[in-house]
């Protein structure tokens, strides 16, 4: 199997949005250092949607939070469009597992927080239009002025999606964004997310436990080995055309082959 490094050499550097090189993360513990990630190499192309799967505790979230700039890098490098990241920034939008909204603020105000930061050069109406546009896209046109605390968990996560897209990040980072939702709501929100994504093609890295979600959403599924010293174990390219219809994807002959490959990885 080709490793990510081999493929990488054939890509010119301006096709790569996000690049992780020889990434290492060590947490000190009373019993000595614990190496979470080691020799982790991964690139993500512009306009690519990748998902990360792996067992609990293998370091997926550690990796994602390092890309987000929320967690220090022990060794190695993370770069976006060739320049190393230094701390968090609005070029990377994050959607967390729990929506992490300000509960006392309305849906609009929550989205506006980020929009104000990255569009200081726009006028008030333009900024409001951005918020309204994305809240409408996620199906919340009737809830602009509802407080976050009054929204169901599914609706809160919709606000989270709107908030992340509204700041037009270069990279979208998603940490099991639908993990806490039931399967029907999960399917609905996958559709909402992928519909906006089809239009904007923001480079995306998503952690998931859900094999079907990974196949439906991504261009490549990246499988991480179990820790300690987790790295990339295997990469499965998903060749379905976009935009994808869930029914067509399910009916496709390759679907259950992909599925078997991923389940096999997770069960062993």
């Amino acid at each position: 199997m080709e490793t990510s490094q081999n493929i990488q050499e054939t890509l010119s550097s301006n096709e790569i949005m996000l690049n992780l090189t020889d990434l290492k993360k060590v947490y000190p513990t009373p019993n000595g250092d614990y190496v979470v990630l080691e020799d982790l190499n991964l690139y993500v192309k512009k306009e690519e949607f990748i998902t990360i799967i792996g067992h609990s505790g293998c370091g997926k979230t550690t990796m994602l939070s390092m890309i987000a700039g929320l967690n220090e890098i022990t060794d190695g490098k993370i770069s976006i469009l060739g320049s190393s990241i230094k701390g968090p920034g609005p070029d990377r939008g994050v959607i967390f597992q729990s929506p992490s909204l300000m509960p006392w603020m309305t849906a609009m105000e929550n989205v506006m927080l980020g929009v104000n930061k990255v569009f200081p050069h726009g006028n008030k109406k333009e900024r409001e239009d951005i918020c309204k546009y994305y809240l409408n896209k996620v199906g919340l046109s009737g809830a602009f002025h509802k407080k976050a605390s009054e929204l169901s968990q599914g609706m809160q996560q919709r606000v989270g999606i709107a908030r992340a897209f509204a700041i037009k990040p270069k990279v979208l980072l998603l940490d099991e964004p639908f993990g806490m939702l039931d399967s029907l709501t999960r399917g609905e929100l996958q559709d909402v997310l992928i519909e906006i994504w089809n239009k904007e093609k923001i480079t995306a890295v998503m952690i998931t436990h859900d094999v079907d979600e990974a196949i439906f959403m991504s261009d490549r599924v990246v499988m991480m080995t179990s820790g300690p010293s987790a790295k990339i174990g295997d990469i499965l390219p998903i060749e379905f055309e976009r935009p994808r219809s869930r029914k067509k994807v399910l009916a496709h002959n390759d679907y259950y082959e992909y599925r078997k490959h991923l389940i096999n990885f997770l069960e062993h």
Partner: protein
Amino acid sequence: MAYLELNNITKNFGTGSDMTEVLDDINLHIEEGEFVAIVGFTGSGKTTLVNLINGLETPTSGEVLFKGKPVEGTSHERGVIFQNYSLLPWLTVYQNVEMAVREAFPNESKDFLDKRIKEYIAMVNLSPAISKRPKELSGGMRQRVSVARALAMDPEMIIMDEPLGALDALTRGNLQDEILNIWNKNKRTALLITNDVDEGIYMADRIIPLKPGPKATLGPEFKINIDRPRDKTLLNDNPEYKKTRNAIIEYLMDIGNERSSNSTIQYELPDLQPRDLRWRA
């Protein structure tokens, strides 16, 4: 007569204008030895349905019959694994399981009980936490205590309300197998409430969707004609599995599309690019 029968059940909460009609026209027959899964969604009334069967709630109209007799209150013949774990916070893991086992086996010796408690705690990999109290455990660990407690009672009917939702894939798979083992070995009857279609297909003989409420009712049943024991990896090569799985998922997607209201309002997105705020050294 079926082992468990729900006949024309409706269940409302509140009165007058505050009345919520949760369940409506629920008819379900489960035969002895069957494993039935109900796939439902948040807020559709799944937990209410479970509480009617275990005797914590009574129907507004209709009847729940267990072995031909109306269900009146709870009984250790029907063991429940609750979604919210429902552990007693002041008791340790051991004591939580012990309480249930004592109730189910009042005439057995202390040694028998002790052995049984430890066996089931080991089964859910919690032996190292045996003396801990619930607040010292993670959500997944609490859920495993709840599984151990219900199975240790060896109930005639195992009722599970999203029992494995908070667990990672590996633990989840192991506990699914343990539950199937006990169901199969002791010829028990099982009702599983889940929002995971794959869990349903892997474990059950029949899957019945519960449509979203208010006035939630059961949808058409899907029979799972796949031999046991089932193998999760090999299932992906099984044409019957693919057919059944796609049929259920499509049915659920159609329900979802009915439910979601599409907004007709359109907003214009201003042509504005974000200012590059990245720190540069």
